[in-house]
């Protein structure tokens, strides 16, 4: 088992009332799964993803990730945990504009204090694997959306995470680019990477092995 959420609640206080963003979420994810989270706008998909990714806190409930109880961890340990095991892919790619493709890939490794030679090897490996060696010295603005997302995924994968969290990874792409990205996810999943994606698209959801539907913060 990779992670387990037990009775997770998250709310915000507004005008003396609690507005629930997440309500009693129970979820167990095994290694190697490919899960799609679906639901209308405002149903809490992204919030759930952020909670799983430990970017966002929750107000009640338990969260176990591998052997660790996330709800008991200090901020520092939590960030160490996600740094090591989780990679993020964003709808807007969120590449760093000032850095080249190669340097974008290298960034997480720098934060994880890998040595220079190791970093070089890992980046070269990743460029090779994604077939973007020729683009390594370009800046994000010089790439198409699909290519940027490719880099985004490569960057998420570079430190060998156990889990990839993708928030509408194809949301800004045309259908052909989107399909390519989804094929890539499928392929990664086949190689053993656990993936949780948020999507609006039924078609994309079908790439996954399991679909979770959310409505008003509840799993249905």
């Amino acid at each position, binding site marked *: 088992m990779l992670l387990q959420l037990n009775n997770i609640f998250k709310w915000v206080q507004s005008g003396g009332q609690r507005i629930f963003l997440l309500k009693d979420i129970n979820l167990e994810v095994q290694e190697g799964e490919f899960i799609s989270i679906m639901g209308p706008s405002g149903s809490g998909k992204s919030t759930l993803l952020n909670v799983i990714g430990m*970017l966002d806190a929750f107000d009640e409930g338990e969260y176990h990730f591998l052997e660790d109880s996330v709800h008991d961890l200090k901020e520092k340990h939590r960030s160490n945990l996600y740094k090591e095991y989780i990679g*993020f892919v964003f709808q807007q790619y969120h590449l760093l504009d000032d*850095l080249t493709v190669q340097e974008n890939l290298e960034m997480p490794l720098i*934060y*994880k204090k890998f040595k220079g030679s190791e970093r070089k090897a890992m980046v070269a490996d990743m460029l090779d694997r994604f077939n973007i060696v020729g683009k390594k010295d370009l800046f994000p603005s010089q790439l198409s959306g699909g290519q940027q997302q490719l880099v985004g995924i490569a960057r998420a994968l570079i430190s060998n995470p156990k889990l990839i969290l993708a928030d509408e990874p194809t949301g800004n792409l045309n259908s052909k680019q989107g399909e390519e990205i989804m094929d890539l996810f499928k392929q990664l999943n086949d190689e053993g990477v656990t993936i949780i994606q948020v999507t609006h698209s039924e078609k994309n959801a079908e790439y996954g092995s399991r679909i979770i539907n959310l409505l008003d913060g509840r799993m249905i």
Partner: protein
Amino acid sequence: MLKKYLISTFRHLQQNKLFTFLNIFGLAIGISVCWSIYRIVSYEYSYDNTLTNREEIYRVITGYVFDEKEDYNGGASKPIYQGIREQLDGFEHVVPVFESSFQNVEVVSKSGAKTSFGEQEHIASVDSAYFKMLPYRWLVGSENSFFDNPNSVVLTETSAKQYFPDSKLEEVLDKEIIYYGYRDTIPKIVVGVVADLEKPSDFGSTAFFSLEYTVYDLNTWTNTNASDRLYLQLKKESNPDAATAQINTVLQQKTKEWRDQSKSTFKFRHWIELMPLKEAHFSTHVGEGNIRKASKPVLFGLLGIALFILLLACINYINMSIASIPKRAKEIGVRKTLGGNKTQLIFHFLLETFIVSFLAAILSVLLIKMGFWLLNDIIPKEISPFSKILEFVVFILAISIFIALLAGLYPSWLITRVNAINVFRNSSLRTKRSHGFNLQKVLIVFQFTIALVFITSSIIIGKQLHYSLKSDMGFNKDAVVLVGIPFKIWLNDKYNGKQFSLYDELKSLSGIQEVSLGIAPMEDGYSSGQYEYAEDGKSPISRQVVKKWVDTSYIHLYDLKLLAGRNLHVSDTPKEYVINETAVKAFGFDSPHDALGKFIGQKDEKLPIVGVVNDFHMLDFYSSIDPMAFQMENRNLRNFNIKLSKNSSEWATTLKEIEEKWSQFYPADSFEHSFYDESIAQLYEQEQQLATLINLTTIIAILISCMGLFGLAVLTAFQRTKEIGIRKVLGSSVNGIVGLLSKEYIVLIVLALIFASPIAWYFMDQWLQKFAYKIEIEWWIFAVAGCIALAIALLTVSSQAIKAAIADPVKSLRTE
């Protein structure tokens, strides 16, 4: 890893060229000011700091009360050193340094040819204690040969090279130098050359005679001459206060002996004080006209200026960094999710700040050179901007780190508080605009407060200077040229009385309106004394009166007004007085007319008052007008006041003619003229320098503040693009939007004016207190300063406001 950080920093700086430029330029100005002022201050504090025994060395100075005024003389009566040596213990060295100057010095070459070097100062008579206290290195010759031979002279390396430019130091030995004093001629043989002491130093003697033991008269104990210096090195365990008291006891004892012997009733009081050597350079209270001194308050003021300017530049950086956080929020958020922790992010940002300040430091090299060039009148010549490269490098690194921490810490802390989720959730920029007072606004108010203090000060200083130079001084100084007969010629009987023949010759020149002999109105070469007026049957009124010797055309030449009575009559000996209004009041006469015919004067020579003139300034505006009396006495007239014709294009020719006439009577090279209005302006040289300095500081402060304001305006306009777009869609006019964007700055500047005005008022009031005649600080000065600041600020922000206001709202809303 560092390399990667550096690359990304440089790209970031490159992409934000405007802000990089504003920040680097602003900080470079700040750093330049800091370095320049640091150089000045460290120079002033470096006097004699290489002496290992500096802490134990004191100079004996003499305090005295004269005319009921306390004053200090940098010298000590000659025999005091003997008194100390004979009667007191506890001194390591007692070191007399009796300096004299010579009219001319001649060097005799082997062939017998003589070369003259003109007037030479700082030639000191010393004994062996001098060389024991100070670490002189003998390049050639030795101490023994010096003190064995009374006709010997020891030169410093500098003066040896001056007198014998072509000789090696060894060859200088045994050469003859002839010193021409005012009274006697002294031939001397060079017996040694010593290396100069490390500069700068309080010990500035250029050559040494050996001081012989002299038995002094009792009255020399009461004579103090600034050129007779006395240094003491105390024993480590000695207490300077106790030493002072002991010396004073000796001095008072001798003074009493002198009083008893001479039966003098002369009222005066004197005492000595020990001035630590390290304070000597800052002893502005001790009158020593020919020595440049530094004033500690001025140095502290300069340090304050440096700090404030640097602070202004750092504030710019802080403000622009904070304002650009929303723009960078995405980057920060991504870095966080990629695993960047707080320390890494802070380090990255501090590194960026460090690099910006380091680049600024490099740019400052250029600005410093420019600054030294601009201020070369004010900065002492011995200070060069980059004489110590290593020191500069250390300074650059230190100040870059200092700036990185001062300007970078707060923004970097803010950066770590950026919430990644918020950034991603609203892919657009979320800019919380607070309507209350945030840090940025506080900092802008602070900046403009400083700028306004400087603006106000520079207006007030400028006004006071103008007032000092241009207001009515009671006499007309226009087109007046002064020519004085040099003292040594004056003393020479050969030229006795020649000034009157020259006077007649000059009067006949067509380019000259009038000539008068006498001491110029504003000139402290007068004598003063206690004058008495005794009304019948009443006790006499005694007043300190300034006496000026003038001739009969003086009053007319200077446009002085005779309020009562008549002008002086021609006379070889003093016969009568013309006094000023203040003297009329001082002696209690009811009116100028009332004063006529009354007898005033020193006890034994009372003379009648025949006329009263209006008050005029006799010193600078720091001093009030004192009671004054004109007197005619031919033998004391040695200054020509020449009123040139109104047509200034003739002046050059007229001056030539005057010079020609002059050389018929006096040696040609003794002709030195000065325009009176220029020499009056020179009285205020320090004030002019202060004005230059404050004006420059004002410009810098305004420049930096405006750069900050500009950067902020750019960012604000950027952050409010959406708001502006919406307002425009809703029908707001361009004017309305420009007003909206400019309005908040007006409030800030008004606030700054409220803070700045009392501060500026306080400091300027203090400064003006020194003047006896001064301008009033009026409210409109502050209003003008405020308007200047406001105009500059609006000019700065309005370009951005207009740009934002005329932008196409469709575009701004879409890109949002």
